[in-house]
Structure formats: structure tokens, C-alpha cells
């Protein structure tokens, strides 16, 4: 297993995703002799996981069962241990396309945070691209570097522990795209410009929860000569499939001879499949501001 390459069978040292139910998954580091407790009982790695095919059903000690899935950045995003607020798949998907990421892209990112977006970037730019990610919090930087190693993507990424607003990305003139998820992105716009390719230019994205941050970032972007400045927001709606029965009211009989037997015992109703929106849904994650650094 690797986050950038599928394999069929679970091996010692893999990170597998245990699927408990549709909104409950957990990451498991597969180790010979280790055990994992779930609410359905124990999973014994040596017998239940190692050598099994990804996607298999594993019966736990209490008789319940789980599925063991191959890790993907999307599953990792819902399973990873949070050390910070993270970006979710809806925003990540939009960022990936609007930054025009593809195999071979060189990307700069800051802050690394919990690495949710980083894994998605690495998946997309492999096998020939590279990610330069900057995290000013030392412990987080170390932790995420460790994860990249465990996930076998460390050859595609350089983690730098520095302050992007002061020290930049540690590279200049190499990036096709820059992503900023920091409290004061306007302070990093100059460094972002320097990191992007000189001749070809490139794309930039900044993620901010507050409109005031967006305003200052857009000002900074236009001051630095960025073009195509565009701020947008993408919201995900999940539709839950339901079977509903709508009863029909009794209008009374319209003819004298209507047989009274009908409807005496059962209430007539129409049954149909439909979807309902969740009662509560995330209404805001952050504004995404995109811009193009023109060629120079």
C-alpha cells in the first residue's frame, strides 16, 4: 500500500482504513501481532488483516464485522487525527482542479496543519511532482513528516519548519501552484509570487474563513500583479435516501353505491423513494480565493 499506488493485499506496515459504518472509519497501522479494539470487538492483525485482500469483510470477536479499505486521501481526510482544523474533500476537490494540479506539478503549501490537503496534493502530483510544505509549528511539522513516511509518500514531499510569512517557502521560481491556509495570507503573497515559476507563472489559492481576510488578500494579490482574481465558495449537500409514505385524505364517497369495504381497515397512501437534506449541514468552511501569477 501507498497513498499514491493501489495494492491488492494488506501487508505488515500498511495503514489500513477500518470501515465501521457510513460515518465512522478509523485508521489502523498494521503490525504483526498487534490488536485493534473496535466497538464490534477485537481485530487481530496477524490473522484478520495481514495477507487479506483490501475490501474484505473482517469478523470481529463480538461477531460484528467491519470492512478493511485501502487508504485514499479521501478516506484519510475523514479518519486522520486532527491536530488542527482541516480541509475537507469538497474544498480539496475544488482546489485541486482550480490550481490545475496534475502529475508532475510542483506545489508549495502552508501551513501543513494535519496534512489533509497535503495527501490529496501528493496523490495528484505523483509520481514526478513535488510538494514543498511549510509548517511553523515544530511538533506538527515533525508529526506530519512522520506520517508521510508511514504512508510511503515521503519521496514526494519536503516539510520545512519555518514561518512562511517571514521566510517564505524555501524555494524560488519552481512552483506551478501555491496554496495558503494561514491566518494572514496577505503577508505571504510576496513569498508566493517568488515561489512560482518566473517564465510560466502559475496559480495561487488562499483559504480563509473570514471575509476581511479575503479582502486584504485580494488587495495584496492585485498589488503584486496577480490576475484572474476570483473568490468562491463551494458547499456540499448530502441527500439521504428515504422511503416515505404520504397518506391520502378521505374526501368521502362521491357516489351512493361506493362499496364501504374499501378503506375501512387500511389507510390509503402513496409510497415513494425520495431524499431528505440533513437537518443540519456545514454552511461555511472558508472562502477560496484563486489567482494567476502572470508570466514575467
Amino acid at each position, binding site marked *: 500500500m501507498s497513498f*499514491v499506488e*493501489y495494492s*491488492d493485499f494488506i501487508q505488515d506496515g500498511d495503514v489500513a482504513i477500518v*470501515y*465501521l459504518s*457510513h*460515518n465512522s472509519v478509523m485508521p489502523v497501522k498494521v503490525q504483526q501481532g498487534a490488536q485493534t479494539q473496535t466497538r464490534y470487538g477485537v481485530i487481530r492483525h496477524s490473522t484478520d488483516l495481514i495477507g487479506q*485482500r*483490501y*475490501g*474484505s*469483510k473482517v*469478523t470481529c470477536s*463480538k*461477531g*460484528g*464485522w467491519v*470492512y*478493511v*479499505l485501502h487508504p485514499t486521501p*479521501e478516506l484519510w481526510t475523514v479518519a486522520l487525527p486532527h491536530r488542527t482544523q482541516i480541509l475537507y*474533500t469538497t474544498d*480539496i*476537490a475544488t482546489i*485541486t*482542479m*482550480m490550481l*490545475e494540479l*496534475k*502529475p508532475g506539478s*510542483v506545489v508549495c503549501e502552508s501551513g501543513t496543519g494535519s496534512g489533509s490537503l497535503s495527501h490529496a496534493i501528493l*496523490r*495528484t502530483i*505523483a*509520481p*514526478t511532482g*513535488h510538494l514543498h510544505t511549510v509548517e511553523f509549528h515544530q511538533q506538527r511539522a515533525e508529526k506530519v513528516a512522520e506520517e508521510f513516511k508511514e504512508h510511503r509518500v515521503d519521496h514526494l514531499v519536503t516539510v520545512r519548519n519555518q514561518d512562511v510569512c517571514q521566510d517564505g517557502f524555501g524555494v524560488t521560481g*519552481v512552483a506551478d501552484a501555491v496554496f495558503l491556509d494561514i491566518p494572514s495570507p496577505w503577508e505571504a503573497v510576496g513569498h508566493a509570487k517568488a515561489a512560482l*515559476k518566473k*517564465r510560466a507563472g502559475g496559480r495561487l489559492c488562499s483559504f480563509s474563513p473570514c471575509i476581511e481576510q*479575503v*479582502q486584504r488578500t*485580494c*488587495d495584496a494579490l492585485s498589488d503584486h500583479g496577480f490576475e484572474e*482574481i*476570483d473568490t*468562491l*465558495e*463551494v*458547499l456540499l*449537500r*448530502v*441527500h439521504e*435516501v428515504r422511503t416515505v409514505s404520504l397518506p391520502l385524505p378521505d374526501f368521502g364517497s362521491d357516489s351512493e353505491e361506493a362499496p364501504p369495504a374499501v378503506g375501512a381497515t387500511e389507510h390509503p397512501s402513496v409510497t415513494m*423513494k*425520495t*431524499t431528505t437534506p440533513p437537518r443540519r449541514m456545514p454552511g461555511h468552511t472558508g472562502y477560496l480565493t484563486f489567482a*494567476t501569477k*502572470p508570466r*514575467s
Partner: protein
Amino acid sequence: MADNREDDCEDRIKEGDYVVLKRGEIFKAVQIQQRKKVIFEKQWFFLDNAVGQLYSTTFEIVSGGTLQPQKLEDAEKPTDSKETGTDNRNIVDDGKSQKLTRDDIEVLKEQGLKGQEIIQQLIEHSTTFRDKTEYSQDKYIKKKEKKYKNTVTIVRPSCRILAMMYNGREPGKICHLRYDTLAQMLTLANVHAGSKVLVFETCAGLVLGSVMERMGGYGSVIQMYPGGGPVRAGVESFGFPSHFHDMLHEFPICHVNPLLAGTLDATAKDSDADQKKLNVAAEEEQNQPGAEQQGSPEEDSMDTNAGDDAEQDQEKMEREKRKEAKAQERKLKLEEKQKKLAATATLLEGRNADGLVIASRFHPCPVLLGLLKFLSPSRPFVVYSQYKEALIECYTKLKERGGTVNLKITDTWLRHYQVLPNRTHPVLMMSGGGGYLLSGTTVAADSSKAAGSERAQEPAPKRLKLNDTEG
């Protein structure tokens, strides 16, 4: 990595390149060809001068439809008109504020004035411009720019640009798939280099091209197509290097059932079809020998020697030979096609594809149920439909059938913002029109093995309950 060379020729527009013309939010995909007239936004021009220029260059359209690269400094327009009003209490709409008439403007245009100059004239001849607020002036200029600007930027095609272009120009051709929805699809299906992805689409090749872009020429894409052949017009526009096409395979959807049943004998079937097609071809040729004769000047000259038996015999023989050669060629082509079909069948028969992407005008249910069988367990799939009801049916069928987890029906709302000093607000609301997605992950089908020995020991496997409580 760190390839800092920034290859010069890579960045320059070449003849034959597929490019995208851009003005504001309007895009148009074209191929660079000499002396080819292009119409874009009611203006026509030739692309000849673009050759050799760098990508992302903005051109001015000058008389005769030639393009003139705009210098980078020119792009900055210093329209500083310091004088502004504070409110509109004294601005009356009497329809006379603009002192230039329609005809005056036409004359300016004929004189070959640049768009920027015409706008300057309009401002100078507007009696109310100076009384307008700063913001109102800004808006006025932007509106006029839209009308009189005669520049075009030539950019490199990408999934982002083409998806936005199709969405703006021809949403019907791509089943109203909005670009943010396409973005979700590529991510939910975990499309990446090195995997084997199945694609079934009737979106002019946009979805296929986007998948290919994300795979960067590594791995394989199998396009399942309906009808006589795959539609790939949109793929062309991506302008992929030729080696990208090595990873692209195709398979007719009408052969899926025979393949699954193991009755698809590629070679036998093919020679049948082969023979049929050859016969038809031969007939066609016999029916129109005259047309062929007239078409070739060589044969015309031979006709003047008519009567000479020997020559006629020779002519006959030559014709026969040519016919044979053509038939041979056709046969080779067909054989090639059959070989490719057989190769693709082998790729599919492994039933170990890594992802499935469906976006078509067909009912997604049978397509999904049919094609899911080719996926390995623990692989993502995503189905697009313009209509939610079709996906509800897919969802229900999949729940009955089993073999999938993580099923979700979703759609996304996309909202753009205008961000300007003191004028920040959402610009427009797009909802519903972007279509719906059903996504999920395959798992091993329920087999006897899953209900292993341990289950027997357990008195009450609460499998049904588990689902309920979590739902």
C-alpha cells in the same frame, strides 16, 4: 523535481497547438492553423501571429484581423479621473448625457481607434461621468470595456479552463455537468497516475480528457462507449502529447454482456465482422468504378487510348491490384482494431480496475451495475447524473445488491464573490443546475468465507441492527 530550466519552447505557441482563446470569462478552444479565420466574440481574426509567442500572451486585434502581442506594461491602464461625485441626487436620466452619437462612435471605430481610446472618448463626452461616484465610474468603465475592448488572450488548455468553457458555451453537450461537480468526481474517484480507470461518458470527451490529465500518461484509461465509436472531440482540445494516447483504450458497451458471460470470442467474432465489412467494401468499389476513373487524371489519359486491348487489360489488372491493395489495407486496419479490442477485453477480464467514472445521458443504473463488476474490491466509483431520481434508483439497487460501502448522493453549491473595496458581496448563486453525484467504494461481495467459523460461535450476529443504529 526542481526542474528550473523552464524549457523555452514548451512555453511558446506552435502551429498545430490546441489553445484556448480568452476574454474575460469567455473561452473558446481552437487549433492554431495558418491563414485560418477565427470568430470569437463577434470579432474575426487570424492566429498566424500567435505562433512563436509565449502562452498567456494578450493580443490586440488590429485591422485586417491580425493579432499584435500586447506589451506587458500596456495591460495596465491608468484611467485616473480623480474627480468624482458623492451621490446621485443630481443625476437625471434624460438620455442626453452622452454627447457622442451612434454614428460618431462608428466613425471612431472605422478610424481604427483602440478600444481603450474609444472608452476615453466616451468618458470625455459624458456630461454626468464626473458627477458619478468613484464606484459608479468604475462600473461604467468596466461595462464599456466589455463592449469595446478588442484584446484576446491565448492560454494553454486545462481541465479547469475547458470545463468552464463547456459550462459557459455548451452545457447541453456535457449534460449540464458544472465544473465544480467535475472537480468532485475526479477527487472522489481518486483518479491518479498509475491506476486503471474505466470511463463511460457522453460529455463530448471532457470527462475523459480530465481523467487523462490527472493520470499524466501513467496507467490506463478504458473508455466504454455506446454506439459505433467513442466521442472524443473534447479530448482533442486538451492537446495531450501523443504518448498520452498510448494509455487510452476503448471498448464498446454492447460487448460487455458477452464479455461478462465469457462468450465474447474476440477473434472469431471479428473475422466474421471482418468478412462482412470486406464484402461491403468490395461491392462499393464495384459499384463505382466510373467515379474513380474520372477522379484520376492518369486514367483519363488512358481513356484516350481506348480500343487497345492490351492496354485495357493492363488497366484492368492494375485496377484489380489497387482494389486488392485497398482491401488489404482495410483488412489490416480491421485486424488492428480487433487486436485492440481483444487487448482491451483482456484488460477488463482481470476485473481489477481501480476506479469507475460515469457521466452520461443514459440511465446510470444499468451502466453502473454492469461496469462495477470490473472493479477490484476497495476501489472508488462515481456516477454523475443531471437528475437526482436516477441516482436514487442506483442507490437503492446497490443497497439490495451489496458489495459497496460509503454510498452517498451529493451535490455542490457554487457561489462566486465580487471582492472590491467596500463593495464585497456574492455575485451569483448557482444551485441545482450542476447535477448530482453518487459515489461509493466497492468491497468484496458477500461470500461463504466471510461468515467464517467465528460467526458460528456467536449466538446473535447483530448485523442488521448495526446498520440501523448507524444510519
